[in-house]
């Protein structure tokens, strides 16, 4: 009786209802867990690149430009010249604009959003650029394996669902001894916004929902890079703090950057009361003395190399000839 009612009432009548539940997008499939709605993300980016002919998007370039500036130094530290550099998740080309003909002849910019790629004119680049629309999650469908001398990614990997998978694809796409340099938001990024929205939602509505993405930790990054098969790893964390007049300007700017919430199962709106509560909570909890509010962005920089027999390797344990005691 029990079993019968389970088969009768359990599966078939509910299957139609089940399909509407966006939260469990992975319920009947195998594969990486889906956290982000990639299509929603693409639409956000397209929209932000189009508003006011791209001018709104240009005014909020400050963050990406700053990080691109810090990343180009890391590329310059490598004494090599390239025929072509692959800029993964290039956006409007914040990083590619900084490339000089002395470093590379050409840059191939890849992004989820074609409109974002096309935002800025070719004259703003010092090197030849090619713009290719492609989903980073399926990199190898567009880029051949063993074809790239250098791959860079500046602030796009924080929207990727399958980060381990993308890193493996990047390693595959590189030629042996090719380098990958990446920067992504992680760690404590936007913790002020996260905590004030959570407090406001609990106080006003009695529960919380996702508004700020889950972030990758720097320790996770070195593990993931190692697991993806990169060698000679470097991982470091940098922080940028931006002051805004209030939570409203912060949220406006995030939207104009195309960085608004794209978590699967997000609520499509925030109640006005909750927003008002969050604005007051943000200021009370994190506000600066001069009345402005800070927003923290933590950026994880990673450098990894595809293994090659020509690379320097650590010596075997116990082969050292010099006693450290004599030096220290």
């Amino acid at each position: 009786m029990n079993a019968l009612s389970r088969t009768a009432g359990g599966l078939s009548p509910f299957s139609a209802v089940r399909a509407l539940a966006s939260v469990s997008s992975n319920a009947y499939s195998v594969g990486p867990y889906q956290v982000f709605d990639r299509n929603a993300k693409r639409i956000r980016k397209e929209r932000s690149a189009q508003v006011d002919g791209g001018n709104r998007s240009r005014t909020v370039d400050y963050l990406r430009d700053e990080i691109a500036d810090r990343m180009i130094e890391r590329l310059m530290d490598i004494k090599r010249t390239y025929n072509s550099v692959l800029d993964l998740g290039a956006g409007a080309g914040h990083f590619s604009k900084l490339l000089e003909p002395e470093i590379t002849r050409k840059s191939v910019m890849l992004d989820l959003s074609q409109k974002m790629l096309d935002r800025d004119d070719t004259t703003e680049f010092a090197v030849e650029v090619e713009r290719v629309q492609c989903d980073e999650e399926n990199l190898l469908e567009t880029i051949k394996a063993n074809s790239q001398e250098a791959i860079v990614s500046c602030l796009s990997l924080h929207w990727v669902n399958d980060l381990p998978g993308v890193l493996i694809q990047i390693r595959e796409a590189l030629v042996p001894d090719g380098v990958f340099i990446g920067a992504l938001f992680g760690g404590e990024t936007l913790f002020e916004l996260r905590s004030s929205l959570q407090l406001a939602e609990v106080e006003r509505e009695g529960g919380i929902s996702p508004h700020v993405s889950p972030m990758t930790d720097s320790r996770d990054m070195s593990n993931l890079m190692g697991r993806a098969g990169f060698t000679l790893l470097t991982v470091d964390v940098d922080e940028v703090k931006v002051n805004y007049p209030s939570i409203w300007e912060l949220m406006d700017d995030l939207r104009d950057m195309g960085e608004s919430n794209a978590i699967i199962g997000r609520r499509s709106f925030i109640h006005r009361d909750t927003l008002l509560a969050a604005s007051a909570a943000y200021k009370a909890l994190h506000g600066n003395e001069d009345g402005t509010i800070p927003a923290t962005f933590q950026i994880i920089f990673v450098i990894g190399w595809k293994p090659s027999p020509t690379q320097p390797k650590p010596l075997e344990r116990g082969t050292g000839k010099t006693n450290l005691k004599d030096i220290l």
Partner: protein
Amino acid sequence: MSSSSPTAISPLRRLAVHSTTTCSSHAAAYGKCILKSYTDMKKDACKDEFEKFGKCMHEAMKRKW
């Protein structure tokens, strides 16, 4: 695309302006209450403070929601 024209002020923009100017003292009072109880937050922990804040906002916006 109407939101992109500089003269049109969106309702959210007005909400932003009034919450940071007209009703800023009520907002600060509510914030203070949150600061007092953020380690153990419960629903309606700062109900009185928010009601004053909300009332001020309703008057400033000349509408309810």
